[in-house]
């Protein structure tokens, strides 16, 4: 799939943001006043900013409200609802924390649950696409959730939780890659099933148009094997390895910040791969798989 910067940014930041909000909802940390304000501001900025970023890739952002209508079937619509609900509930909860020094905990729990649900919905948008076998697995939500948890914990300054959570996320990440590499082959969708041609091995001869088109730009991205390996190592080190290492060192805010930054960089790389390596089966029709 085409690794669109707006989507990479949105999913990465909002995942982090909702992770942080979840921890805040659970009262970790239970800060109030200006400190709380700072935490919530970061959470809202990441989660909300991600949402805004996502509208950049819409053809008609002015109609974005229509996206709330189809929650019965569409994970994207559900994501719209859950994120709105999360932001509203957490907003109220934050008001309590920041202005009234109060912890309206049931609201916090609700907000945390909604944050998790939002991340889950985001993940399910990808998971539900059968045409991309690499995504079409239970590992995808697990991956998104563990990542949000690890990143959220890191942001929330829950050092003791962050390290094991990131380690878990890293393990899931590796699993995702391992199973992802064989996903298309296992899916049963092949040139033969795509074309129904069975009298011999089929090979794409001429494409329908000699130039490019929307489908090729959007759905048929090919990443070189070497490039992919390098990026994976980079993502593992920056996104998980280094932050964990930094967390194991005696905590300072600067180290925390550094851990945060490398984590984000690493996850951006991983997210780029998440899209760029995702083989859409339509590529079979173009002989690009």
């Amino acid at each position, binding site marked *: 799939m085409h690794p669109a910067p707006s989507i990479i940014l949105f999913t990465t930041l909002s995942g982090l943001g909702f992770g942080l909000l979840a921890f805040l909802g659970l009262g970790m940390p239970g800060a109030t006043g200006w400190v709380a304000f700072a935490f919530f501001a970061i959470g809202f900025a990441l989660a909300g900013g991600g949402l805004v970023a996502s509208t950049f890739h819409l053809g*008609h952002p002015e109609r974005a409200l229509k996206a709330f209508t189809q929650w019965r079937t569409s994970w994207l619509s559900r994501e719209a609802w859950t994120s709105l609900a999360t932001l509203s509930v957490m907003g109220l909860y934050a008001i309590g924390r920041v202005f009234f020094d109060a912890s309206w905990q049931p609201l916090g729990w609700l907000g945390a649950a909604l944050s998790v649900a939002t991340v889950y919905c985001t993940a399910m948008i990808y998971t539900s696409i059968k045409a991309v076998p690499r995504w079409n697995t239970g590992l995808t939500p697990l991956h998104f959730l563990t990542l949000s948890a690890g990143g959220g914990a890191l942001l929330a300054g829950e050092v003791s939780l962050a390290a094991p959570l990131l380690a878990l996320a890293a393990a899931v990440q590796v699993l995702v890659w391992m199973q992802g590499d064989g996903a298309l082959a296992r899916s049963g969708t092949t040139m033969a099933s795509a074309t129904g041609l069975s009298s011999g091995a089929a090979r794409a001869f001429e494409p329908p148009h000699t130039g490019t*088109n*929307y489908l090729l730009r959007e759905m048929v991205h090919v990443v070189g094997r070497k490039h992919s390996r390098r990026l994976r190592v980079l993502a593992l080190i920056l996104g998980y390895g280094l932050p964990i290492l930094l967390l194991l060192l005696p905590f300072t805010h600067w180290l925390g910040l550094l851990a945060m930054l490398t984590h984000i960089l690493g996850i951006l790389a991983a997210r780029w791969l998440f899209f760029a390596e995702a083989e859409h089966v339509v590529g079979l029709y173009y002989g690009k798989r």
Partner: protein
Amino acid sequence: MTELPTATDRKLGLVIDLDTCVGCHACVISCKGWNTENYGAPLSDTDPYGADPSGTFLNRVHSYEVQPEDGAAQLVHFPKSCLHCDNAPCVTVCPTGASYKRVEDGIVLVNESDCIGCGLCAWACPYGAREMDAVEKVMKKCTLCVDRIYNENLPEEDREPVCVRTCPAGARHFGDLGDPDSEVSQLVAARGGMDLMPEQGTAPVNKYLPPRPRDQLDQVDVLAPYLEPVAQEPRGFLGWLDRALDQMPGGKE
């Protein structure tokens, strides 16, 4: 409405004959022409006279080479547009309800004024049957020429998709695949019509007729002496000629 109807009254769709399609692209261009002028936004082209021309098309013709284990390679021209799936994933993912499947005939459509251009439905379609228009920024797809097939301003015989009407080789057929007695259903039954990517679970309505077996001429019986000579010698041939002429009506009296 992105909930799929549990059943549709009819299942209108196309049957495409891969045995006969000569790959002429007539269906591609007539579709472009009709749908540029009719339903929804025109199908635009960017850089149309430039270095990187690219446009929206609702129907594209691929071609594949098939190499049998032994024997000559074959070439198959392969038109592809929306298959109007019964279990259309492109519909259920749509957050706005712009994508829907019609209850009366099963046609999958995009209501362009509701479309936010998120592109998710194009991701969900395994067949590459949806394209985002680069100028209008809404999702375009085959409408099964819904503005022709019922159009009372057209003569009865023209109420069919324009790609079907134009196909010079007669490789495209249109009808109700939900009715086992319809001509298209009969054709599918007789010629072993197939689904594309059945494992995707989309339950496509459109069907493809596979190419008939090729290069069978000399496969009959490898040892058969095909034609029996009448004589081995040219002289003998002229003798045969004389006799043959005598046996013709009005030969030797």
